[in-house]
């Protein structure tokens, strides 16, 4: 008997329209699920606001009397920080262990029985969550920041749509990374180790603790083009504050798209490998 898992192609020819409908329904469920945690969203906003003030003051002090540092002027730094605090919640960089928990408890077996590929269904849920977060978590810091700091408003009309595309890709890239970190549970059971490495690495390398432009030029270039980390935070922020000409912004978003495709493919590959060795305990 051949094994039946979610990653084995379904017997009948797949149609595109039902696929989109399923994807949309799962995403909508993800949106609704997170929209119920309103108190947690408010608490998170308070935290983002405090860190917005902290980072903003520190970076502005780094800009000092000269007023510019690493290609950012004071207003650009302020926008970078406040938009970054909002984006942080949209990409949900930390704290997602749903998949790892389900692998450890064996509940993941239910995911494998569904007629939707687990990577697809988790991605849809995550996009729904990000949709809610972009309303509840991204907009408030963008509103609060300008009350206390002079912020940078994009000059070029194309910047805003490019930022939105870049933010969407950031969500997908971040999801891909988180899925891979969670999927180590198939082999390790306890994902605390990989999780803490991810938490640390992503914060520094994505440009959250400091804009990567603060690093020596060659190091920043390597991080930008050879690792996915800047794609989850720094790139959309650089696009928003127009740190570089539009052409560079387009290139960076292209790199982001490349990482998104690559990571999703890797997630599917890892998932496939994992299913071959997964043993769910119990009857």
């Amino acid at each position, binding site marked *: 008997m051949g094994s039946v898992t979610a990653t084995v192609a379904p017997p009948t020819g797949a149609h595109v329209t039902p696929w989109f409908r399923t994807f949309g329904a799962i995403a909508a469920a993800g949106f609704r699920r997170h929209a119920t945690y309103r108190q947690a969203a408010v608490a998170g906003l308070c*935290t983002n606001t405090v860190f917005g003030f902290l980072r903003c003051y520190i970076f502005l002090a780094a800009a*000092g009397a000269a007023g510019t540092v690493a290609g950012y002027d004071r207003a650009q730094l302020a926008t970078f920080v406040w938009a970054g605090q909002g984006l942080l919640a949209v990409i949900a960089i930390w704290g997602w262990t749903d998949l790892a928990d389900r692998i450890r408890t064996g509940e993941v077996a239910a995911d494998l029985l569904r007629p939707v590929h687990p990577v697809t269904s988790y991605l849809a849920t995550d996009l729904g969550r990000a949709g809610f977060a972009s309303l509840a978590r991204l907009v408030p810091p963008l509103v609060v920041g300008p009350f206390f700091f002079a912020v940078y408003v994009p000059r070029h009309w194309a910047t805003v749509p490019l930022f939105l595309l870049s933010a969407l890709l950031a969500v997908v890239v971040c999801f891909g990374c988180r899925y891979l970190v969670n999927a180590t549970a198939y082999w390790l059971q306890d994902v605390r180790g990989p999780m*803490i490495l991810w938490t*640390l690495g992503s914060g520094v390398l994505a440009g959250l603790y400091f804009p990567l432009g603060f690093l020596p030029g060659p190091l920043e270039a390597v991080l930008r083009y050879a690792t996915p980390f800047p794609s989850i935070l720094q790139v959309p922020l650089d696009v928003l504050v127009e740190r570089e000409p539009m052409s560079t912004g387009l290139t960076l978003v292209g790199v982001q798209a490349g990482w998104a495709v690559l990571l999703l493919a890797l997630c599917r590959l890892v998932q496939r490998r994992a299913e071959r060795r997964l043993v769910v305990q119990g009857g």
Partner: protein
Amino acid sequence: MAERGSASRVAELRAYRALLGAQARSQAAYRTSFVVDLVGNVGATVFDVVTVLVIFGVTRELGGFTLRETLVVVGLSSCGFATADLLVGNIERLPRYVRTGLFDAVLVRPLGALPQLLLMDLPLRKLSRAVFGLAVLLFALVSAGIDWTPGRVALAVVAPLAAVVFFGSVFVLTATVSFYWVDSGELANAVTYGGRDFTSYPVTVYGGWFRALFAYGMGFAFVSYHPALALLGRADPLGLPPWTGWAAPGVAVVAAALATLAWRVGVRHYRSTGS
């Protein structure tokens, strides 16, 4: 409670030791993860220090302080925070205990609620972080060119201890919020980790009411900034008198008293979320 014999106290200590031992064994059970955890936890504090170094890579001074001077501030902050996080940081899991009802089980046992919570998941992996924090402080104190006097030596010992007590109190105080607001989520982080970041830089970096609130309203300026000024022999650019450098122990005691009070009131206010 007062007339309790020494025999029962010994039994109590034995119970705490059993809790701690069980924790140590269970955490070491997944050995690879534990080692990665140890390394990863150093990483958190390492990156805090790296962030300061990177920022000094693009500027010569921050808020009127050089790198060597700032490192004393960083050292006091990270040593104090990391040690407090090791000893009491676990309390930040209280919201989950309250939400899941696990706190009920804690309350019905014949041991103190707070020590139980702390021992139930004492994060031994954070040991590495506390050691690194201490190393940063020692390095900063040696390299800052401090003009050592008996008073400054005493301050160099007392200030980190006061920082541990202060951060520990902050952890407990913020955790008690979850007795009133079950879904407070990451709100506590704003003050605990926010406080850590705030105390990692000279307060001259900040401005306006934000500085007034965090530095003096909540007392974070006395954790690392003012003791560092006293150690370095610098006058406060913001104009506070020199004795504020020695206020750290007093502020820590006040914070600890407030935390104890808040905890007692909070536990009394606690109502189970139900089955």
